[in-house]
Structures are given as C-alpha cells and as structure tokens.
C-alpha cells in the first residue's frame, strides 16, 4: 500500500495538524515528534457551500499548502448549524479524483472521447444547434438540471434559446409534496420548528438518511427537552432508531392512516376549533367525508392496529399546537405512490386540524430573501416563451398543476423517440441513472441530434453526450449568491473557489457566457458573475466583499409565532381546494388506492421500496472511495426482507437473491430483518452505477430504477417509484 512520493498522511502530519505550537507542551517524546517535522505549512480557511447533496450546507474549507484538507460547518448557517455529514467531508477528496473530465470532450464513438478546445466545442455546438433550430425549431431544445443555485442562469440560457423546456428531477423526487402543500397552504415547503416541538410525526420521511442537518440537530435538542417522535415507515429507518416509536405500516397505506387520524381528531372533537374556524376553508365538508375513514377501516389497509392509530391521534392532539406532521420529502409523499398527492393534502389538513401553523413548535413559513436583479436596460432578460412544456406540464388539458420549469424529466426519452425533442443540455443531473427503466431512457437519449453535458465526471448521461463541457468542481468555482440557508431568519450565502481549477475546466457562469456568444444569444449574457452577484445583493445592503469574507450573512427578519397567513386563493388553509375543483380534480383529500399490489398468494411477490443511506446521495457519491468504503465495510447494499417471507423462500441472511420483473433483473444479498413490513423488500438507493468511467462505483450494487416501469401519475405525471412489483427468489448457482 506504500505510495510513491509523499503520501497524504505524511503530508498532513508533516504540516503538524493544527500547528506545532499547540502540541509542544506534551511530555515524553511528543515534543520531539512535533519538533522533528517540517515547518507548519499555510493553513487557509475559505467559507463556501458544500455540493454533497441538494442542501448546500455552509462550510469552512481548510487547505494546507494549497491542498484541500478538511471542512467544518459554519455555526450560524440555518441549514446545518455548523454540522457536516459524511458526504460533505468525503466529497472534498473528489477534486483529486482521477475520473474527472480534464478538458472539453467530444464523443467520437461509443465510450470514445477526444479532448477538444473550448472554442471548437462552442463552435460545433453552435453549428449543430443552428441546424436543429432551422429544421425543428427551438421548441425541440431542452435542459435537464438539478434546479438550485445556478438555475437562474441555466433557465435564462434555455429561455434565451427560445425554449421553455426546462426539466428538473422533480418528477422522480418531490413533485406531489410541493404541489400538495402549495394547494393546501399556498407554500410549497413549509418548515417545522422542531427544536421547540412536543410531538413530531414522520410519515415515511427519514431524516436520518435523507439528511437535513439542522433538522437533526433540532431533533436532538428537542429530545433532550422531552419531545416525542414517532416514525411511520414500512421499514425501520435510521430516524426510527432515533425516534421513540416506530409504526410498521403497509407500504402505500400511509394515506389510510392519515385519514383515520383526521377521523379520530374530528369525531372526538380534539381539533383546534379556534384555528379551524378562523383560518381554514371547507372544514364541514371534509369532516363529513372523513367520517367513513375510521381506525377500524384503516387497520385493514395499513396493518396498524386501531388502538395504535387512536393513541397516535390522541398524542398529536394533546401536544397540539406544539406538534407537527412532518412536511416530508421523497418518502411516501414524494413521487412514490399513486396516492402520494392525496397523502400530502391530508397531512397538510391534519396539521390544519391541529392548528400548528405559525406556532412555536409547529409548522411555519420561513422568511424569504428577495434578491436584486440585473439592470434590464443594460442587461436585457430574454422573454420566457409562453405556453406549456412539451411534456404537457402547465397544459390545462394534461398536467395543469405541474409547473413549467419543473416538468416531467422521465418523459424526455419518449419525447425524443417521438422526435419532439432534438437537442438537450444536462446540468447537475444524470437522467440515465435516475429515471425509470434505463434501457428505454438510453434508447431515447440516443435519438437526440445533440446532447451536451456540463459535468465534472463521465456519468452515464455524460458518457452518452456528444459534447462534455466540464464545469469546475465546486471547490474550484465561484457561483451566484444563494438564499437557501434561510430558516428562522433571512440569510444570504455564496459559494466561492477554495483552490484554483486543477484542469481545463470553467465555472458554469463562464461557460454560459462564452457558449451564448456562439449561439447568437450573447446579448443576454453580457455581464460577469461579479456584476450579477452585486446586482443580487444591492437591495440587501451587503457588499460582495463582505459576503465572500464571511460566507454566510444573517440579515435578521426573524420568524415569530403569531397569526398564520396562507397565500392560497381563499387566504386560508384549504380542506376544499378551489384550484383542484376548477381543474376537475378531487377537491378534498380522499382515499385513493395504490396502483399495484403484490400477489398475496404468491410467496415470491413483493413490492420493491427504496430509500437513501446517510452517506450517499443520488448516483455520484458512490464513486467516492471514502463513501464506498462505508458501504463495503458495513455491507450496505443488501436488500431487506422480512424473516417470515425469507424462510418461505429458503433465503438466509447474507444469501444471494434474484430480483426480477418485466423491466429488469438483478441480484443482491439478503438482509433478513424484523425491521421491514412483510409485503415489501427494501433496496437502498445510490448504487447501480453503470458508467464504466466512474471506476470506483462501476458495477457495485443495483438500483430500483432497473425495475421501475415508466408511469405517469394521472394528475401530476410523476413517476410513482414505489409502484414496483418484483419476483424475489433464491439465486441458484
């Protein structure tokens, strides 16, 4: 294992971690050790934003002798309160990953790439795009991205090209969650004051793996103060280990449980009458509706005893209004089941019954920072093309509630096959691995006349792209000003370069500035990042220099409990929604069956559910050696199965299982555990990388997308990623 030259360890010890002066006071030979080493090298600290997942936590990154060393959290940051997770620490190393794209690439054959100059890449992309525009029009262009941070720039880019087809990962992640909360409360992402709560209920939300560091830190403080947390999940998730009670629910039945909670709270008169009277719309109608959804009714569907449901309702009501049912993310109320949208609506409404909005320890709407814009006289903004997206998002006839700009990313392959999409740009996204049924996705993306990826490694999607324009790694680039750290007060923050780019890569803003000159849309990018950021900060009274020095600035504007304000049509929390009524959709939260059920008579038939692990995110993190080692050491690619079902199939813990359905087939070893409902097997996500250019991750584990048919939920069009039935059997060797 001895490495040539200076090892990282020697290098760090050589620079006497933290400075020789502090260790010099120790006895025995410790002084000699410290003194004999090389002089302390430059330790520099740069505040910036992590890029390990979508949270973008504020971190101080330390360099030593110009090399990235470690990160510490910035304590005032409202999103991480000074904490950093395993991804945040480990992905620092990625800057030195050998798999990185080192210059613009042109694909010259299957998995064959030729380094080219930026100028040549811009020119060729410009020419090809012009040909496509002449033949098919700009409505055949699209962008797929992870819509954060630089989304303002990338949307400007695709709009300037004359297309409104800006896709995000929403339809495979959070779509119903956002729309459901927006319909119910007028705010797509209400926060919860976890730190001061008395009781928190989590429906499928696993904060212990889909990490949100501030919420975890608040949960820890609340637990010390005696708060109680209950987790409802088909499997014993990481946050269930933290919580006081785990309720093992049948997958997809969370809606029945929530309706029954509403039933108990209403019929037993446990709801907050003042709140319901003043701040809600349509209570009587919904109260009538939920009468039929008794705990007895729910017991059959959820596999949760009626007494447990009653007790849960009583506990919630007793703690209200200092209680919440968590707003959720992907699990249960994300794009998982056909009834996920109804579930989010019901959770919003139950929070309404409990009167938790704008209460200490309840739900609230985080203060928002309004950033300034570039002077439109000097820097004209492109007109946003009108009308729905090519996939039907925003179309009154198809998916009226799915916003333009989020779109249905898993519809792209089909649209490409139909010839409606011809040229694509991919930024911070990897649809080949994150969309259902990869074979079909590959087929679709292959049909495109032009695919350009802005990526720092050759992900599955980048490997299929005609051109790869490498964005500098997040530790090497400056980005736009961000406001996403705002929690209970307004905060601005910025990502900035910690080290100079190691290779011939550029920040996204520079790539867009230069590329736009070759695409005839240079007028919309006639400014520098500096100017853009200064314009953004202008209304806040904060200088860019100060922000760069401090990384995060708190602007005050602290949230205080009080009267809630809902920005719905009625100005109230809507049990009965006028928007849904207008669109001929169920106006009240109501029971809806899931799409598919495992066959109760077939011992091989299971629903396949998935979820994150805390040290991984999406698809790129497993290519990081420090993170993959955690998976390997702890054997974390195993698929969970209930002991009774495993015995019936003759499968013992650690044995190999073959999982298959019409879409795909794969093998994984079994983790036989009581910690999962009998109806399902659990497959951790973040594995199954099939790009050979990600050498650490390639071929390790499988992904749920390999088994997921391409569905479009009728109302919003999301991918219903837990509506998978698989056949599980012992692998015969």
């Amino acid at each position, binding site marked *: 294992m001895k490495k040539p030259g200076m090892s990282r360890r020697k290098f760090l010890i050589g620079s006497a971690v933290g400075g020789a002066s502090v260790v010099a006071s120790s006895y025995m030979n*410790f002084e000699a050790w410290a003194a004999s080493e090389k002089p302390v090298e430059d330790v520099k600290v740069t505040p910036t934003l992590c890029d390990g997942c979508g949270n973008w936590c504020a971190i101080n990154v330390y360099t030593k002798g110009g090399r990235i060393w470690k990160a510490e959290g910035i304590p005032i940051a409202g999103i991480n309160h000074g904490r950093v997770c395993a991804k945040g620490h480990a992905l620092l190393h990625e800057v030195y990953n050998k798999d990185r794209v080192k210059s613009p690439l042109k694909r010259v054959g299957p998995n064959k790439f030729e380094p080219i100059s930026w100028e040549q890449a811009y020119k060729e992309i410009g020419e090809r795009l012009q040909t496509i525009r002449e033949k098919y029009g700009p409505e055949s262009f699209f962008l797929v991205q992870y819509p954060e941070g630089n989304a303002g720039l990338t949307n400007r880019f695709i709009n300037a090209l004359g297309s409104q087809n800006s896709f995000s990962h929403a339809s495979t992640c959070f779509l119903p969650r956002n729309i459901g909360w927006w319909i119910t409360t007028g705010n797509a992402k209400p926060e919860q004051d976890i730190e001061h709560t008395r009781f928190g209920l989590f429906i499928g939300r696993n904060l212990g793996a889909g*990490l949100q560091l501030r919420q975890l830190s608040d949960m820890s403080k609340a637990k010390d103060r005696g708060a109680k947390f209950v987790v409802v999940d088909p499997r014993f998730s990481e946050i269930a280990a933290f919580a006081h009670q785990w309720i093992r629910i049948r997958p997809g039945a969370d809606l029945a449980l929530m309706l029954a909670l509403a039933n108990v709270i209403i019929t037993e008169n446990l709801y907050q009458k003042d709140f319901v009277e003043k701040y809600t719309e349509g209570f009587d109608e919904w109260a009538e509706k939920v009468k039929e959804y008794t705990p007895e009714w729910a017991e059959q569907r959820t596999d949760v005893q009626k007494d447990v449901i009653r007790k849960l309702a009583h506990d919630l009501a007793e703690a209200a209004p200092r209680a919440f049912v968590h707003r959720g993310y992907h699990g249960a109320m994300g794009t998982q089941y056909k009834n996920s949208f109804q579930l989010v609506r019901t959770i919003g409404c139950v929070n309404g019954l409990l009167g938790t909005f704008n209460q200490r320890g309840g739900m609230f709407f985080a203060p928002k920072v309004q950033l300034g814009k570039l002077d439109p006289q000097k820097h004209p903004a492109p007109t946003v093309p009108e009308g729905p997206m090519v996939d039907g998002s925003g179309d009154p006839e198809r998916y009226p509630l799915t916003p333009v700009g989020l779109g249905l990313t898993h519809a792209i392959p089909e649209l490409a096959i139909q010839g409606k999409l011809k040229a694509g740009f991919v930024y911070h996204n990897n649809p080949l691995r994150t969309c259902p049924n990869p074979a079909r996705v590959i087929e679709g993306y292959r049909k495109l006349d032009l695919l350009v990826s802005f990526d720092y490694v050759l992900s599955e999607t980048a490997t299929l792209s005609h051109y790869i324009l490498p964005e500098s790694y997040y530790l090497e680039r400056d980005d736009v000003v961000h406001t996403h750290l705002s929690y209970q007060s307004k905060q601005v923050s910025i990502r900035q370069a910690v080290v100079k780019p190691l290779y011939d890569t550029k920040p996204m803003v520079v790539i867009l500035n230069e590329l736009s000159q070759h695409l005839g849309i240079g007028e919309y990018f006639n400014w520098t990042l500096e100017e853009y950021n200064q314009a953004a900060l202008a209304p806040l009274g904060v200088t860019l220099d100060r922000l760069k020095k401090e990384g995060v600035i708190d602007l005050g504007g602290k949230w205080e409990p009080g009267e809630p304000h809902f920005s719905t049509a009625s100005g109230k929390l809507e049990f009965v929604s006028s928007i849904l009524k207008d669109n001929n959709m169920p106006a009240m939260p109501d029971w809806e069956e899931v799409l598919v059920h495992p066959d109760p008579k077939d011992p091989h038939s299971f629903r396949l559910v998935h979820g994150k692990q805390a040290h991984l995110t999406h698809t790129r993190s497993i290519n990081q050696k420090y993170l993959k080692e955690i998976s390997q050491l702890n054997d974390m690619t195993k698929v969970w199965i209930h002991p009774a079902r495993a015995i019936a199939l003759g499968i013992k813990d650690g044995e190999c299982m073959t999982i298959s359905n019409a879409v795909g087939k794969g093998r994984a070893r079994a983790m036989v555990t009581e910690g999962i409902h009998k109806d399902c097997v659990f497959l951790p996500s973040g594995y199954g990388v099939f790009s050979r250019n990600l050498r650490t991750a390639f071929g390790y584990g499988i992904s749920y997308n390999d088994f997921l048919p391409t569905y479009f939920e009728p109302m919003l069009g999301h991918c219903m990623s837990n509506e998978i039935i698989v056949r599980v059997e012992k692998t015969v060797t």
Partner: protein
Amino acid sequence: MPRYGMAIDTTKCIGCHSCRVACQNQNGLDYKETFNWIKNRERGVYPSFDKEYIPLQCNHCENAPCQRVCPTGATFTSKEGVVLVNPNTCVGCKYCMEACPYKMRVVDHQLGIVEKCRFCIELVRAGGTPACVSTCPTQVRIFGDLNDPNSEISKFIAQTGALPLRPDLGTSPKIFYKRS
C-alpha cells in the same frame, strides 16, 4: 489538569458515519483506515423491535493494555489522559493490536505504524473539540473533562448512569455509553 473523556448517547445515533469521515480528514487517513466504526445491532420483534447504532473508537483506557505491551514505549498517555502513539518510535510490531480488548488499533499502512483515535488532541489543546464531536448531526457525543464535576460530560454521566464498554476488564475506559 483536565482528564479528557467522551460520553456517547447511542439512542441518538443514526449511523450516518459523519464522524468517521470527519476523523479521517482531520487525521489525514487513507479511505480504508479509520479510527472509528459504527456497529449496529437489532433486537426484539415488532412492535418492540429496535436497532441500536453503536459508535466505537479507542476508549483511552486509564489502564491501557496496549500501552503496557508496547516494547518501544511509543504508546503513551498524555498528561490529559489521552492515549497517544509516537510515530517516530512505533515500529509497527502490532503487539498493541493483540492486547487491545476492544480491537480499536489500526495499522497505518502509509507510515507503517499502528495508530488509533487521538481525541484530536491538537484541536482540543487549541480550545476546540474532536472532529467527530463537532460534526455529529444529532449530537451523540459529548467531550470534556471528567475531573470537572460541572463539565457537561460529568453531569451527563452522573444523570444517565452511562457506563464504559466491558468495565469488567479492568481497563477503566474513558468513553461512557448511554444505551437506553
């Protein structure tokens, strides 16, 4: 003089491994080498099913078997009660690995020595806390002075009755676990 120790509340641990990588970075360890682990253990049948995540690392024993067997004196206890290894005198004989009843010593292949958790002593001496403590999202770990009855850790141990692992071995570890 302080006598440093750590308390670990396993009821708060979610097994996220933030501590592991924070430690690796702080100490410049290769990806395969680590000073801390998280084991998990399942018990019971639903509805009383439970899973416990247990962070493990060097216990900084008062009566450290690894120090006793070290032929070169490379393993030593600092004045703050932190068990450390002098990389200049360690010859990599691995006696300590055999002697440690908790199996918490690790070969550092880059230096050819046997290392272990160092309580991030240089951070602590500069007034900070170990990397695993400051990064933990759920504040599982409390670090502090066991000699000071008013320190957070002393109070925590007094209130919760947190115990070291295998106290029967007579090693007097300085890491205390609250496990229920």
